[in-house]
């Protein structure tokens, strides 16, 4: 069985699954719209969580939040299920495919055989769509891939029941009910307000404050942790920023695209201006990644090199603080 499903490649998996499922159901919603309405943009330094033996930084909201908020704000309903038993999880998947219903799945990356080896880490919050089954192969639309792919039923079971942090437990989700017309305008406003609140939150490790906090830590790392660990940590920041998901620069460009699209929908020229400003900030994040990667590549790690990238981050934080205050006023 194969559902007549069109695959569109996206920059980020969760946005992509939502956007693709919406398009399948007849609503033309772009990836940036999903990201903006779902308030995907975020910064969080998570001191107690270690990934690959270095502190974790998230540039996005918790997995699942984007879809949840998007659904609530546009007025669609989603059905979510988790399973203890892999057979049951597979049976429910087939049931849906037989009803011509493509579904979103949360999966672990480590056993996704179609990814390059270097990209396969134990990360359990990846999302993809299953849109059919041929013999023993499930037909997969993984939004970050250029084209559709497939997994055997054994391979799919492995990724659906990956273990560790954010274990997906067979998590399956799909929209079940749509309003006649999506409440896009009000959804955009709610989405923007939420992001401004997150980014300006009066909490040390979140949003703009979180960026400043991270900059302070970077200054201390070479003395406190030694060059080797400091380099490893800095590498991790860049990796989480640019490779896992689309991180600092990438997410800012998606957000800028969202603001540009919203400016037309809401007929608000201020948002178009802010979109340009966000593009500039995105470029600054990329400059930071470039300079940081140079530090740990040369392995020299002079204190002033660390201070330099820390200052870059602080400048970004200051710019974002002004940006989100303006954005809050603009809607």
């Amino acid at each position, binding site marked *: 069985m194969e559902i007549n499903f069109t695959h569109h490649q996206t920059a980020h998996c969760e946005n992509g699954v939502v956007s693709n499922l919406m398009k399948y159901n007849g609503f033309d919603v772009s990836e940036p719209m999903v990201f903006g309405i779902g308030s995907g943009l975020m910064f969080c330094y998570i001191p107690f969580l270690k990934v690959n033996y270095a502190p974790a930084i998230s540039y996005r909201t918790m997995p699942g939040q984007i879809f949840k908020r998007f659904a609530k704000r546009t007025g669609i309903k989603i059905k979510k299920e988790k399973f203890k038993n892999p057979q049951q999880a597979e049976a429910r998947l087939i049931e849906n495919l037989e009803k011509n219903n493509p579904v979103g799945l949360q999966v672990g990356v480590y056993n996704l055989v179609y990814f390059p080896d270097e990209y396969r880490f134990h990360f359990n919050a990846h999302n993809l769509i299953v849109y059919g089954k041929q013999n023993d192969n499930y037909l997969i639309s993984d939004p970050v891939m*250029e084209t559709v792919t497939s997994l055997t039923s054994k391979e799919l079971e492995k990724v659906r029941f990956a273990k560790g942090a954010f274990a997906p437990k067979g998590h399956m989700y799909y929209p079940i009910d749509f309003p006649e017309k999506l409440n896009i305008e009000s959804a955009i406003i709610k989405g923007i307000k939420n992001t401004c609140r997150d980014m300006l939150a009066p909490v040390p490790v979140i949003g703009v404050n979180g960026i400043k906090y991270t900059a302070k830590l970077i200054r201390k790392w070479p003395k406190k942790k030694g060059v080797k660990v400091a380099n490893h940590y800095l590498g991790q920041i860049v990796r989480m920023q640019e490779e896992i998901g689309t991180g600092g620069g990438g997410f800012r460009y998606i957000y800028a695209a969202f603001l540009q699209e919203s400016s037309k929908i809401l007929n608000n020229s201020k948002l178009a201006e802010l979109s340009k400003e966000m593009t500039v900030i995105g470029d600054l994040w990329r400059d930071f990644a470039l300079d940081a990667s140079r530090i740990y590549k040369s392995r020299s790690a002079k204190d002033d090199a660390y201070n330099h990238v820390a200052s870059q981050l602080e400048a970004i934080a200051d710019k974002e603080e002004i940006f989100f205050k303006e954005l809050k006023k603009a809607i």
Partner: protein
Amino acid sequence: MKKSDVPQDKSSLETGKHKELCYAVDDKGEYTTAKSSGWQPKTIALDNAIQEINDRIAKAKARVLNKETSPIEYYMELHKMDIGILASYVGLFKWQVKRHFKLKRFNKLSEKTLEKYAHVFEISIDQLKDIDYGN
């Protein structure tokens, strides 16, 4: 980022002929998408992470050969796991897994427990006991 600046650097994406989608602005300032074959800072960051893992695998291997730890630790590193992840895969507590790193404990493990580890690492019990199979 301008569309013309979307990086087309060599990266491990290329070996799999993958390209990523990026958002960038065109000449008129409108947002559009473009494909990227990779970006050097990302590749450096990834290589750094892989290097880190390979170092840990080599260290674990040396420790196993020196009889300082059990092969479980080596296979754990080989599968890019940490103790928490391995513990949840075998369905044991972290402290139990840590204890199984001790050779004395490891040599006394029941077939059933060994089988759990072997199953997670997708090898036989014989292979689990002898890391030379890992090569």
